[in-house]
Structure formats: structure tokens, C-alpha cells
């Protein structure tokens, strides 16, 4: 079955061509045709199965219509006329029809289930892939829980539509067409009177859609908020516990839960009125036929028998209509989820590889900052909701401003400065987590956008300030950047950063599970694992953002010795607060409020008596206590 799987791409359906509307509703309407095209794209890989699925639905629907008819035949042609063979024949056919129906229903349920589930999973994968493609700025603006909700709750909400929807749609449309044909043949005037309720039904449905679209969307947003709150409370559970604030979180959850209930209650009201309203319309239709047909019959314009059998067909006509209107409600609900998913898929990554971008060759490691300025407050960037984050300020708060310097291949540069000076920001810019608004960064003489992001990053190694370990063993975490590494290599990397002593003490050594985000390790141990991870990846450019801030000085000494070896022939940018680390750098760059205040070697900077010299004296003071 895997041969049949191919992944359709959302971009293939021309997502850039449709202009985005500020008004959500209009956007949805405008996008509907596109959405259908896109959905068909999702279905295309499975067309063989879908063909058989439709076949099974048709046959089983047909076979389901036969038994009542055959039973009627048994009574009319068999029992009433006393024809035993006709009776027996009808019963035999009846049994056959039941068996055919059972077998085709089995096929139908299985095929519909298969295609539906598969398509949902494809959609899930597509959403995941898209989220991963987004730039870091996107993740700063959107809470993880809300994104997770797209991949879980919203997809589950589509489940019902897909699993029940297809069969309901086919079976009822089929019945409806048959009944309409019969009714038209029987008496077209009466038929037209009956069909007169259809416009009413249409109006009801449109009204329903108008009011429900917002209500259903609201439920998607509410459950996303709950998911986000859960995610956050659970990942911050240590803080919750240590401050004893459980009640506060429960209160907050109560609020969100209540809001979720309200939002869903709104849809209950809408659903509760829509479906019974269609039921009422059927009764109105029946009454109209009785009045009109009765009057005509009494006048003698129509045979009474026709009216009587016509009334018999009315239920057959209205039944599928009601089923379809029920389906319409489910459809609206599913569409709200799909809209949310679409909005996400429509959010384009801020940083995309251009068509000209190349795979970098083995990097030399020359990094050039060319009049670079960057601010996190990009007014053009929109949050997922589609609203601008804030009006553009006259002069943005630059996180780094006018950065202009070059790091030679193989050089080790230390970035120094007070917290918030922009050190981490520079590190993130080198790895192209963000693009600068002004100026550029070049690597080996080519601007970053000339390279494809991932191949470029795979030659860089960054230990971010906020370390993150994945649940799994220590070995798996160390090998994250190079999964093909042998156990010896992993152990060597651990050894190089002085992590071996603690790993050996653990019950399962390298195979010890670290728990989610590495909670089962101490913070220093986590940093060591993150450090070993980057060492094993053997990057051409190494960026250490306070990589050892939680590590004790003794271990850090071990690391420093190892680094001498590791840094040989590699460019390194090191951010640290410890003097001994900074001193080893070839060059020190002192940042102050986003500007480069001074650069030079340790001795030069001390000599010049500037900012660094001041920092140094507070160091020596502080390290003395």
C-alpha cells in the first residue's frame, strides 16, 4: 500500500495566487473552489481504491433498496395471489439481496475507512511538514499547543465528516434521484409542488451556514486554547508546584473550559434548530401535497390513486433530504476545522530557499557581517490569526544595529556583553533563524540566502542558550545530528565534553532515558549532552551560546581542553560569561545595546581601557566575591 502513497503538495494548488482578505468569511468563500481542488489533490493518489469504494457504495445502496421491494413483491405477487412459487422466488431473491448488501457494506465500510483514514493521515503529515518549514519567528508568535491542536483536534474533527459523510452523501443522493424520477413520472404537477419546499430548505441552510460558520470556528479556537494551556502547564509543572499555584491554574482552566462549553453550546443551539427545522419543512411539504392533491382529486383533475401513492413516496423523498441536511451540519463543522488548517497552511514561511540557492560546498568558515541591523519587531509579519502584531513603530527597537565585522576561517571569536546586548541574536542570525532587515551576513563570501538553509545548517553546529533534549536515551540525544554515529563515536564525544564520568554513574550509562526535555538529568548534565551532540556533528562553524553556563568550573576546564582540539580548523563563535573561556578566543567582540562597542584580543582590550576593561575588573572583583 505504500507504493500507492504519494504526497500531494498544498503549494501545487497555487496558494500564492489567491490574495489574502482581511475579512475571514470572504476569504473562506473565495477559497472554497481552491479547497475542493486541493482536497481532490489529496484524494488523487488513491483513485483506484476510490473507484472501488464508489462502486461498493452504489451496489450496497442498490442492494439495500431491494429487500423492501422484494418483500412487497412477496406479499403482492405471492401471498395475495396465492402463487407459492412467486413467493418462494421473492424470498430467495430477498435473501440474496441481503447477502449482497452485507458483503458490499463490508467492502464499502472498509474502503471508505481506509481512504478516509489515509487521507486524514496525509493531511496530518502535510500540516506537520508545513509547521516544520516555518521560520523561528513563527514559533515565537504561536503557542505550541495551538499548533498541536491543528494536528490533533482539528484532524479528529474531520474524522466524522469523512467516515460518515461519503456514504451518507452517495446513498442519499442516489435514493433522492430515484425518487424524484418516480415522482415526476407519476405526476409532474404534484412533483413540482413538492419541490417547492426545496428553495425554503436552501434558505434555511444558507441561514444556518451564515450563523454557524463563526460558531464552529470559535469551537476550534477554544479547544486550541485549552490545548495550549494544558501544554504550557504541563511543561511548566515544576514552577507550578514550587510556587504552590495549582489552584490558580485550575481556575484558569475552568475559565477556558467554560468558554469552550459556551462556544460549543452556541453550535448546539444552531444544530438544534436547523435539523428540526428541516423536519418541519417536510411536514409542510406533505401538507401542501395533501391540500393541493386532495383538492385536485376532489375536483376530479387527478386520480385519487395517484395522490395516495404520491403521498407514499413523500417520505422516501424527504428522508434523504433530512439525512443530507444533517450531513450539511457535519460538513460545516468539518469545514471550520479545515479552515483553521488552511489558514495555517497558507501562512508562508518568512525564510524560504530561493530557486537559485545552492548546496554549500564544504565551508571554509569565513563569516562576514555587512552593516547588519535586525529587529524582532517586524511590522510586516502577521500572527497566525491574520492580524498585524502591532502598528509599525517609527523607529524599531533594534536588537542588533550596524554590525560590521568579519570572522576569518578557523578563528575563534568571543561575543561579550551584558544580557540583552544582542549576543544570542547574532548567533541566531548566523544560523539564519531570522533574516536581518538591513545589511547581510555572508559565509565564504556569499550572502546567506544564496545557500539552501538545511544543507547550510548541517555544516553549522549551535548549542542554543535554551538547551533542549528529546525524550530518548542519552546516546540518541548525542547522535541527534548524526544518527549514523557508532557507539564509540558517541562515547568519544561524551568524553570530550567531560560527560563520561556522570554517564558512567547512571544506571544504564549511555542508554539511560533522559525523560521529556531531559528532566531526568541535572541542568549541567543536560548542557553537557547538548554539547556532546554538537561536537559529534563535526560542524564547520561552531556556535556556543552560553553552552556551559550551568556546568561547574572543573568540568568546564575539561571542556576547554577538549575545545582546543575540536576548534582546530573550525570557525567558532563563543558566547560566555566566564573569563577563562573568553580569554582563549582569538578575538573578542564587545556588544553593547546591539552595537559593537569594541573588538580586539584580550590584551589589546585591557590595554585600551574601554568597556571590556571595565567588565574585566568587575569580573575579577566578582570572581573574588
Amino acid at each position, binding site marked *: 500500500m505504500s507504493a500507492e502513497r504519494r504526497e500531494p503538495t498544498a503549494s501545487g494548488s497555487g496558494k500564492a495566487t489567491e490574495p489574502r482578505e482581511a475579512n475571514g468569511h470572504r476569504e473562506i468563500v473565495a477559497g472554497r473552489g481552491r479547497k475542493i481542488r486541493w482536497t481532490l489533490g489529496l484524494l488523487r493518489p488513491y483513485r483506484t481504491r476510490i473507484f472501488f469504494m464508489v462502486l461498493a457504495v452504489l451496489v450496497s445502496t442498490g442492494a439495500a433498496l431491494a429487500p423492501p421491494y422484494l418483500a412487497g413483491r412477496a406479499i403482492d405477487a405471492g401471498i395475495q395471489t396465492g402463487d407459492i412459487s412467486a413467493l418462494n422466488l421473492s424470498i430467495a431473491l430477498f435473501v440474496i439481496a441481503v447477502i449482497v448488501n452485507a458483503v458490499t457494506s463490508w467492502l464499502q465500510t472498509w474502503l471508505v475507512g481506509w481512504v478516509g483514514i489515509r487521507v486524514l493521515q496525509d493531511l496530518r503529515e502535510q500540516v506537520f511538514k508545513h509547521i*516544520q518549514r516555518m521560520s523561528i519567528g513563527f514559533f515565537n508568535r504561536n503557542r505550541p499547543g495551538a499548533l498541536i491542536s491543528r494536528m490533533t483536534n482539528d484532524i479528529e474533527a474531520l474524522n466524522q465528516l469523512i467516515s460518515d459523510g461519503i456514504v451518507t452523501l452517495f446513498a442519499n443522493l442516489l435514493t433522492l434521484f430515484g425518487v424524484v424520477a418516480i415522482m415526476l413520472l407519476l405526476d409532474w404537477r404534484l412533483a413540482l409542488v413538492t419541490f417547492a419546499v426545496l428553495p425554503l430548505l436552501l434558505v434555511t441552510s444558507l441561514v444556518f451556514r451564515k450563523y454557524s460558520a463563526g460558531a464552529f470556528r470559535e469551537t476550534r479556537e477554544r479547544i486550541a486554547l485549552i490545548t495550549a494551556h494544558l501544554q504550557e502547564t504541563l511543561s511548566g509543572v515544576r514552577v507550578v508546584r514550587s510556587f504552590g499555584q495549582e489552584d490558580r491554574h485550575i481556575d484558569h482552566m475552568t475559565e477556558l473550559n467554560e468558554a469552550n462549553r459556551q462556544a460549543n453550546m452556541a453550535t448546539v443551539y444552531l444544530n438544534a434548530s436547523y435539523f428540526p427545522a428541516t423536519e418541519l419543512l417536510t411536514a409542510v411539504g406533505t401538507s401542501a401535497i395533501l391540500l393541493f392533491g386532495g383538492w385536485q382529486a376532489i375536483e376530479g383533475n387527478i386520480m385519487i390513486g395517484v395522490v395516495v401513492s404520491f403521498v407514499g413516496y413523500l417520505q422516501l423523498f424527504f428522508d434523504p433530504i433530512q439525512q443530507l441536511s444533517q450531513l450539511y451540519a457535519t460538513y460545516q463543522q468539518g469545514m471550520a476545522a479545515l479552515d483553521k488548517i488552511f489558514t495555517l497552511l497558507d501562512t508562508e514561511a518568512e525564510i524560504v530557499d530561493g530557486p537559485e540557492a545552492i548546496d554549500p560546498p564544504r565551508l571554509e568558515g569565513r563569516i562576514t557581517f555587512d552593516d547588519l541591523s535586525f529587529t524582532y519587531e517586524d511590522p510586516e509579519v502577521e500572527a497566525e490569526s491574520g492580524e498585524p502584531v502591532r502598528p509599525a513603530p517609527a523607529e524599531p527597537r533594534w536588537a542588533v544595529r550596524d554590525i560590521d565585522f568579519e570572522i576569518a576561517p578557523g578563528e575563534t571569536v568571543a561575543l561579550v556583553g551584558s544580557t540583552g546586548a544582542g549576543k544570542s541574536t547574532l548567533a541566531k542570525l548566523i544560523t539564519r533563524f531570522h533574516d536581518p532587515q538591513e545589511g547581510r551576513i555572508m559565509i565564504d563570501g556569499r550572502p546567506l540566502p544564496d545557500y539552501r538553509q538545511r544543507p547550510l545548517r548541517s555544516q553549522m553546529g549551535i548549542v542554543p542558550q535554551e538547551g533542549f533534549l528529546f525524550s530518548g536515551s542519552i546516546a540518541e540525544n548525542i547522535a541527534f545530528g548524526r544518527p549514523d554515529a557508532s557507539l564509540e563515536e558517541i562515547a568519544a564525544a561524551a568524553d570530550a565534553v567531560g560527560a563520561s564520568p556522570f554517564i558512567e554513574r547512571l544506571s544504564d550509562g549511555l542508554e539511560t532515558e533522559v525523560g521529556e526535555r531531559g528532566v531526568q538529568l541535572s541542568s549541567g548534565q543536560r548542557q553537557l549532552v547538548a554539547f556532546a551532540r554538537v561536537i559529534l556533528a563535526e560542524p564547520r562553524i561552531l556556535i556556543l551560546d552560553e553552552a556551559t553556563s550551568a556546568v561547574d568550573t572543573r568540568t568546564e576546564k575539561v571542556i576547554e581542553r577538549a575545545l582546543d582540539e575540536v576548534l582546530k580548523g573550525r570557525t567558532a563563535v563563543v558566547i560566555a560569561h566566564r573569563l577563562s573561556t573568553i*580569554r582563549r578566543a582569538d578575538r573578542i567582540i564587545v556588544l553593547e545595546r546591539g552595537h559593537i562597542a569594541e573588538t580586539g584580543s584580550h590584551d589589546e582590550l585591557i590595554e585600551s581601557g574601554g568597556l571590556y576593561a571595565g567588565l574585566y575588573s568587575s569580573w575579577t572583583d566578582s570572581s573574588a566575591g
Partner: protein
Amino acid sequence: MPTFRRLLGFLRPHRRLLWGSMVFAWMAMGMTVLIPWLVGQAVNAVQDSDQTQLFWMVGAILVAAVLRLVLTVIRRIVAGRVSLAVEFDLRQEVYAHLMSLELGFFDRNQTGQLMSRATVDLQSIRFFLGYGLIFFSQSILTVLLAGVVMFVINPWLALIALAPAPLIVITALRYTRQSRPAMQEVAQRVAELTAQAEESVAGIRVVKAFAREDHQFERFQGAVDRLFDQSIRSTRIQAFFTPLIGALPQIGTALVLLVGGHEVLNGSLDLGQFTAFYTYMLMLAGPLRTVGMALGMGQRAIAAGNRLFEVLDREPRLTSRPDAIPLPEGGGAVSFDSVSLRYGPEAPEALLDIDLDVPAGSRLALVGPSGSGKTSLAALIARLYDPTEGEVSIDGTDLRDLEIPSLRHGIAYVSDDSFLFSDTIANNISYARADATPGEIERAARLAQASEFIEALPDGYETVVGERGLTLSGGQRQRVAIARALLANPRILILDDATSSLDATTEQQIRAGLAEAMAGRTTFVIGHRLSTISLADECVLMDEGRIIDRGTIAELTDRSSLFRELTGGSGDEPLFVPEDEEVLA
């Protein structure tokens, strides 16, 4: 089926509404039965060319239809309300229960797994309890009524019609027995997938830094495929049993036609009676299908319920005794009495034989290599974990005799990962004391050297920090976390490596604030830099979970080579004896 009964228990508070909605449902059903009868009467009127009768009947149809509309609307609203109330209650209960579980539980369970229970799993329970149950009762009622009528009309034919009933029951039982574990596994795999998604999103910065998107995607795809396989397995069961449950009653119909038909032909049965009987049999088909569907919903709900109760039944392992008292008055003296701690039965000892007395109001530094147990020791003071052996007490009372909230409100703990919530800075700082005034918040921020950068932010204290506070720089985050602890006005303050991301200048500045905040409180300082440690009067040196030495900085520098190595005191950095007592005063 204890799970089923427990799930029903969640309906108990709403049983009035539930019964109400059932009564409305039955009444609406009555209307649905009445309308065809009225139509029949109207047709008779047409046949009799009785115009007034026709008008009356049409009027009656419309009245009945309007009544049905009203009844159905009410029924649906009430049912919707009940199902949402059940979802609400269940979610509250799960969440509150999670809030009562000890930290160790969360060390071992993935966030995504737990999230899935409080979202996706709840949906299936809500659908069943809110709708499935009503459909089920409605259908069973129809089946019973029709069955009784059939018996009254002709007991012998009724028995024949019921011949497949045992088969249906056996099939239905089989269906439930096979599908429940399959559906439970589906729910489990949804949870695994959620966990996978959660981790990938939360760890996106590392994924990107290592250009490992493909790898993460493959893992996610693995989770998706496992879910797909299991869903197909569950669908296969459903595809086999549901048509079977639908077809078996038809066998009864065939038998009735055969036997009844021949009897009519023999003359032993009246045709009119037979037709009436047959009409009632036809009425059974729909409800029986609904029963099959409701069974499926029920199985899903029970599967989800099992998973929910798995969490709800997990007793909190860290509770206070029933006779626990609030934290008594005192200065915050802490003592450890032969304390050992293991995080799991197999895990090595994180703390071993700790004996430590910390007088009220004193300042103690914990120094030791990474993993030596400093954080673990601090966590014991806030009773985030219980010691495996020995006892920890504050002001002479064993922690296990104290009410947990009261204990924790007396302690402020700045953890080494300075986690912030995605909320405004003001709300983060006032986290421990929601009633804090803006003035108090600003004062705490000033003490933590955070006010300057906060005021420079576009929205000042109202700036919302992103997930985990990641839109702040590391040092800014740490200072907000410190401010949060200072505002709590605790008896005991624990600073666990709280200044590791601060540069020397900022750290110097913060010392004054900290010194002011520490006055009169028992303080534990964990750190690696001498500058941090020197905030304390005394140091405890730890290694491999034990306390190996205790003394002032000068003493330890003098006599312990480990201490010198750890603090860099023996290295290339100049060292002097602390002389800043006036700062600490």
C-alpha cells in the same frame, strides 16, 4: 463493565436533564408516529372527498409537526447541554487530578500523552454520553414496543421473527469484545502521535539548528503510520460486524415471509394480520442499525474512559497527612536528617545520608559538580519530592506533617531553567501572589535588576513573553524569574543557579538587590561562580550526592582542592577574600 458504570456516574449530576431529554425524545417519537397516521387519515378524507375532514387533518399534521419541532429543539438543546457538561466535568476532574499528582509523575509521562487525554479522548466520551446513549435508548424502546405489538398480533410469528435474536446478541458481544481493545490502542496511538508532535514543535529550534527536519518528520510519520495501521485494524472489525448486525434481522424477516406466507396460503393466517405484523417488522430495521452504531460509539467511549481512569486512578504519591498543619510561625530553619533520595527504584542515589542544619535567617551556598545533587536537595525543601529515607523539616516540623500549599507558599524557588509562562511580564512576576500591586511588582523587578529592560520594552510590564519566555534574552528571563521569587515574600528563598546567564556587571548590580531581599530569610544559593556563592555566609560542598564539607568560602578554599577547582579559585582568575560585608548587610 466497571468503566461503563463509572462513565455513567458522570451523568448522575445531570440525571434530571438527561431524563428530561429522554422524555422529550420519546414524545417527539410519538409525534413522528402520529404524523403518518394523520397522513393516512387525510388520504382517507381525500378518498371520501371529505374536504372539511381533509382540512382538519392537514391542520393536525401541521400542529403535530410544530409540536415535534419544539420537542426536538428542546431535546437537542438539553442533550447538548448534558454532553457538554459531562465533557466540562471530566476535563476539570482530569486537570485537577493532574494538578494533584507529584512532580515525579510528570518526569516520566510525556506532555503530549497527557494532553491527548484531556482533549481527543474526552470527545468520544462526550459524543457517547450526550448522543449515543439517547439514540440507544430510543432505538431499544422502539424495538421493545414493536416486539410487544408483534407478540400481541401473533406470538408464533413473533418467535420466528426473533429467531436470529440470540445470534445478534452474540455477534454484538463479539463485536464489543474485539473492538474495544482495538479502539483503546487507537487512542493510545493518537496520544503517542500527540506527544511526538508536541516534542517536535517545542524542540523546533534544535531541530532546525541541526537541520534534522527530515528525521523529525520521519519519526512523526512513524507515529502516523502506526496510528493508521491500528485505525485500519479497528475499521476492519467494524466493517465485518456492522453489516452483519444489520443483516441478521433480515433473516428473521425472510423467515417470517416464508413461514407466514405459507400459512396465509394454507389459510391458517389472516392476510390483514400478516400485513400488520410485517409493517412492524419493517420498523425494526432502522433502530437496529442505530443500536449497532451506538454500540460502536459506546466502545470508543469506554476505550477512552479506560485511558482517562488510568490517570484518574493514579493516586497522588505525595500528599499531606489528614492531620497536617499549616506552616507554623518561625524564621525558616531547615534541617535534613539522614536524608537519601532516589528518583526511581532502579536509579542511583541522587542524595545520600544528608545531615544538614541550617539556622533560621542564614545564607547557605551549595557547591558541587554538575549532578552532585544540589538541585535535588533544594527540591526536597519545597517538598517537590519526598526523600526515600530520612526526614526534612522546617522550623522543627517534618514536611510531611505540613499542608503542602502552605509549605510552598512559604518558599520561593528560582529553578535553574527559569521557566516563564506565555503571559505578560507583570503576571509572570506576580505569579505567586496574584494580588500584588503594580508598585510591588515594580519593586521586585527593581531588586532583580529587571526594571530597566522591562521599561524599555514597547509595552513595558504588559509585554507578553512568548512560549517559556523565549522572546527574552537568557539573562532577562532569569531576572524576571528572580523578581517572581522575590515578590513571593517567602520565608525561605532558593536560588538555583539563578544568575548563570548574567554577565559580571549585571550580576554585580543584582547582588545588592538580592542581599536586600535575602535579609531575614533563610536562603540557599546554588552556583558555580564565586561571585554567586559569596552571597552566602557559609558553603556546603557536595559530591556524588553527599555533603563532603562545610565552612566559609575562605575555609573551604583553604582546605578543599575540589572546592578550589569548582569555583575556579585555584585557576587563572585572581582571588580575594570577601570584603563586601556591607553589601550584604
